[in-house]
């Protein structure tokens, strides 16, 4: 047990309020539905991209056309009609903004209601925020402060214009266009996302953050995030997602590539709260995301995710531990309620010597939901002294849900040390009575116990995110007990 100071105690006692539920109305410009080479070219043109980028997209599109949607995941859904989706939607008064004052006040209000008041965060949390709304980045704060350190943090569409050499060097190197069905689709049609470059030896002085939001009906969101941490640098990156409730299923197919060069560290945290569909399972976002990091010598990448939203989640943030002594971590909480389905986990590919990985996965299933952990730990024959520790815990609430674990472990080196543990449990009657006796009602008691169950992962989130995540857990499980 590390030291527990008065400050820690006080911090823990602080009560934070979270307000949720909002609707926003901003005029959007949307492409006609459907996808073909012309649409791909049009997206590229709209963004004023160089020819190499257009070609890159077209190549991805051609690959995608030949691919089949994967079916191995433990999820069942009506496949999206890819020709019924509009592949580009941007707020109409596309703002080219330098400060927050210029942002559409209604949009700012939206974020306020989301609990991410930019003003406040600027002051309190020292967070630089990039917001991608229906695929287009609308504001990047703190650009100047970051600029002084040589840190590039901007919409990827701008980065393609301003730093083409960097984007071209790294884009698609971790997740190639041919990687999988959704990654290929994303490569062809992504309209925006964030680009981040931390120069050699620079420790990014603040958390960088992107908020994604699908607003327009009938659109898909295909954002692309590329984070490059140059040698000896450090960055902590936060990503939040929300979408308002809609009856139809919306598609979100993002690609995130992290490049951690020698001796660098990237912390990537996600709080995903896409609309999960209603109680009967109607509507909700299909969240098919490819996230992968490559770690060079002595580099470290930590993925932390809190997945409470989406009707269907298909997501495996992974680490290729290429360099010697590199470290990969995956901390995940996935909550499914009502008719939600999640198939999520990670891949830790150990290639270098003395590589280390840690996997902590907490799955919470309620209602009629299905929650699966799927993971791969692979130790190649050259990966001397590789270490992995995995722990997958499931909590079931009620008797109509399912918890599944599919861990794959492949080891080809004798010096490897692998430990995998999994447990399944429920909230005990005795625990509930104990809480009740101390004046805590059952719903609150469940929230408390679930938070306790998820503690190891919540602890990995930056403070302001952890508070939001805790509240989200509570909201997601509302009504899960009869």
């Amino acid at each position, binding site marked *: 047990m590390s030291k527990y100071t008065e400050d820690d105690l006080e911090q823990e006692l602080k009560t934070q309020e979270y307000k949720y539920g909002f609707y926003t109305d901003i005029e959007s410009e949307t492409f006609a539905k459907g996808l073909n080479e012309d649409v791909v070219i049009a997206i590229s043109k709209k963004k004023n991209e160089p020819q190499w980028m257009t070609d890159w997209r077209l190549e991805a599109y051609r690959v995608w056309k030949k691919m089949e949607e994967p079916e191995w995941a433990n999820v069942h859904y009506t496949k999206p009609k890819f020709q019924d989706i509009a592949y580009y939607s941007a707020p109409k008064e596309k703002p080219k903004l330098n400060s927050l004052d210029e942002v559409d006040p209604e949009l700012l209000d939206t974020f306020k209601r989301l609990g991410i008041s930019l003003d406040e965060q600027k002051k309190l949390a020292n967070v630089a925020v990039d917001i991608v709304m229906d695929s287009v980045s609308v504001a990047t704060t703190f650009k100047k402060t970051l600029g002084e350190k040589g840190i590039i943090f901007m919409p990827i569409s701008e980065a393609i214009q301003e730093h083409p050499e960097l984007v071209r060097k790294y884009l698609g190197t971790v997740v190639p266009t041919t990687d999988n069905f959704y990654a290929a689709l994303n490569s062809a049609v992504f309209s925006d996302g964030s680009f981040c470059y931390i120069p050699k030896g620079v420790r990014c002085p603040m958390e960088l953050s992107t908020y994604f939001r699908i607003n327009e009906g009938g659109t898909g969101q295909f954002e692309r995030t590329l984070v490059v941490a140059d040698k000896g640098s450090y960055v902590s990156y936060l990503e939040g997602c929300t979408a308002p409730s809609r009856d139809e299923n919306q598609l979100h197919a993002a690609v995130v590539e992290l490049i951690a060069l020698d001796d660098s560290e990237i912390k990537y945290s996600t709080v995903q709260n896409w609309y999960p569909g209603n109680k009967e399972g109607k509507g909700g976002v299909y969240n098919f995301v490819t996230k992968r990091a490559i770690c060079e010598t002595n580099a470290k990448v930590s993925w932390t995710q809190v997945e409470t939203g989406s009707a269907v989640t298909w997501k495996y943030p992974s680490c290729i531990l290429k360099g010697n002594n590199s470290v990969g971590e995956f901390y995940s909480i996935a909550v499914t309620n009502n008719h939600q389905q999640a198939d999520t986990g990670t891949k830790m590919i150990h290639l270098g010597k003395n590589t280390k990985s840690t996997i902590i996965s907490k799955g919470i299933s309620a209602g009629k939901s299905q929650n699966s952990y799927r993971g791969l730990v692979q130790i190649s024959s050259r990966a001397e002294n590789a270490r992995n520790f995995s722990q997958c815990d499931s909590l079931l609430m009620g008797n109509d849900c399912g918890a599944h674990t599919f861990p794959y472990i492949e080891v*080809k080196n004798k*010096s490897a040390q692998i430990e995998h543990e999994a*447990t399944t449990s429920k909230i005990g009657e005795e625990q509930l009575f104990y809480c009740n006796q101390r004046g805590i009602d059952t719903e609150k008691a469940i929230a408390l116990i679930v938070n306790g169950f998820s503690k190891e992962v919540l602890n990995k989130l930056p403070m302001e995110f952890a508070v939001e995540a805790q509240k989200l857990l509570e909201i997601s499980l509302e009504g899960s007990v009869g």
Partner: protein
Amino acid sequence: MELTDKLLSSYVAFENRVDTNSDIHEIRSKAFQNFENLGFPTKKLEAWKYTSLNSVLKQDYSLFPNKENAIQLADVQKYFIHDIDTYKLVFIDGKYSSFLSESTHDTFDVCLMSAALTKPKYKAVIENYFNKIAKKDNLTSLNTAFANEGAYIYIPRNVEVEKPIQILNFTTGSEAATMLQPRNLIVVEQNAHVQIIERHQSLTSNPVLTNAVTEVFAAKDATVDIYKIQNDDTNASLVDNSYIEQKSNSIVSVHTFSFGGNITRNNLNFYQKGEHIDSILKGITILEGKQHVDHHTLVHHIEPNCESHQDYKGIYNERSTGVFNGKVVVDKEAQKTNAYQKSNNVLLSDKATINAKPQLEIFADDVKCSHGCTIGQLDDDALFYMQQRGIPEKEGKALLMFAFANTVLESVKIPEVKQRIAKIIANKLNVKIGFDL
């Protein structure tokens, strides 16, 4: 000729030899069609992701050895557990050897399948149990299509069989390559108790492929202990499909000792159809050379208040490969299930591989399920400690490995089996020390 084609074309000949008027004729034909549609499994199937039969299927197997081959007891005695009195069912190249066997019909039946399938006396049991729980997958269907010979064991109510039953399958190598498909049926009625030791042994280095299917039915309060000794020649491959159905309060344990053979695939399936059932699955695997063993286990918890315990230990040397794919399914109704699964592995060589996939699929909320899987090395400190006390490195390592595997061995209930396994382990590890049991 391709093995698949050969099997397809020889089915007609097989049918001509067996009684096509029997009830099981239809079961066989259906199974045959099933296999015809499915063919042999390939690595594309999730269940066969880590095991390829390609190299094994290339051989030109003789399916029905013509010759009646006799062997001398003295030549094969070492493969029996011979220091205790047992019932024996011995098959030579797939044919029953009455000379080497010791069957019985006295209060219970320990005899041959071919008789049970044809004689009216056994009709009721065959109707109730034959092919009732065997899966309809490729290899089980193939076995069912050609099902004819094997062990038939029927233990009526309240009978405690005092002597263990040994089932031995010898291959003489009289053919260049032999394929065998033994089919066993073991029915243990209420409150009955039986212990079974099973072994497949090739007597030469001619290739052998055995595709065995065993169905076990344990009624209420029954106790069944099965020991599978797999220490065959390195040219012999085995697919061992076992299906076990348990009723309330029954206890069934299966110990699988995998030391020999070329490619060994164990499909061990438990179905719990009652309450307060205990299913025990344990295994020790020690491999070297290019050996490959794949343990595929399934425990299906269907009803409440049951338990399952899985404990598999694996030691892999040289270029050997181990696979552990353990699946626990807990149905919605199966509240208060306790399911434990453990797979611990040691790699001794950089060329050895272990692939593990411990799966849980849980649909009930009030259950305790856990699985643990470790891959590691022997404890260097412990080894150094032993060396310091004068135990040479090789013997020290052997002792450590033995200690590692011992949690499985100590639950073996027949002392002679335990001793035999300990001896095989010592041989396998190439040490002369005796392991204290």
